[in-house]
């Protein structure tokens, strides 16, 4: 699908520093970014921060944006990269905390309040297992399985060949199965 004219116009204006146009881009794509970012990081301050960072990086990249892909696709790619950076920082922080004998923060923030789904032990186990995946495997799980994007699109978003997406997905599923096996 070609880039929508209004999106193209907004990008053009935002690239020249038009605040209104930038705000319109944020408001238009906020929900899509929220879905991807919260699936990657869980709900909470980290996700909000990553969402903001994704839009700021988009703004910085606007002068180089040639309109070959949709703004939404470009933004999703940036958002996934930001989330991978956050997950990598969490992993390093957890490593240091464990090294000094402390309890590392859970890698994903789970809202346990009052949701009947949350009480399901199996689902929680699955979520914990997904949270334990490293960034590149989690990105494939979120984009390919949760968002049900075609392999080709996932490959484009992650900047890797389709074969790599397939092998990462296979590896992620194996890891999840192994973790759940251990849990049960």
């Amino acid at each position, binding site marked *: 699908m070609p880039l929508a004219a209004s999106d193209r116009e907004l990008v053009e204006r935002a690239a020249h520093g038009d*605040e209104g146009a*930038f*705000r319109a881009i*944020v*408001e238009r794509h*906020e*929900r899509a970014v*929220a*879905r991807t970012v*919260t*699936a990657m990081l*869980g*709900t909470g301050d980290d*996700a*909000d921060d990553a*969402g*903001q960072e994704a*839009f*700021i990086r988009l*703004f910085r990249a606007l002068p180089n944006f040639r309109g070959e892909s949709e703004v939404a696709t470009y933004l999703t790619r940036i958002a996934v990269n930001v989330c991978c950076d956050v997950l990598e920082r969490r992993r390093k922080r957890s490593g240091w905390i464990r090294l000094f004998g402390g309890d590392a923060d859970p890698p*994903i923030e*789970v809202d346990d309040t009052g*949701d009947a*789904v*949350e009480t399901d032990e*199996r*689902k929680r186990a*699955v*979520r914990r297992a*997904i949270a334990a995946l490293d960034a590149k495997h989690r990105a494939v*799980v*979120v984009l390919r*399985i*949760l968002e*049900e994007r075609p392999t080709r699109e996932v490959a484009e978003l992650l900047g890797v060949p389709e074969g790599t997406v397939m092998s990462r997905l296979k590896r992620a*599923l*194996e890891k*999840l*199965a192994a973790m*759940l096996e251990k849990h049960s």
Partner: protein
Amino acid sequence: MREDEIRDALRGERADAFAPGFADRTLSRWHAARTAPLPLSAALTRPFRVLAPLAAAAAIVFAALSVRHRDAASGQTLSDALLGARRTSVQPSQQRAVTLDDIYGLGSLKPGAE
């Protein structure tokens, strides 16, 4: 591991929107980013990107000139020429061993010492 099980688990996890006021927070951050002074690394990167190709081009020109004017008769090798180094020859009668003491010793501080 079934994909629909993963999908169900993650669907309950994700949110469809950020907390209210997300656009305002993003715009505030955008303003802060625009008005913040350029970090030192970025400030140095820009002139480096301009000057580095010029410096590389100049180095190539000087190297080419040095090679072109190489004095092969005096035994100057290609690598010497590239570095602009010249071969100097010393007459056997002028040759003598140079010791560390000659270079770093207190004798080198004497007036008239070489």
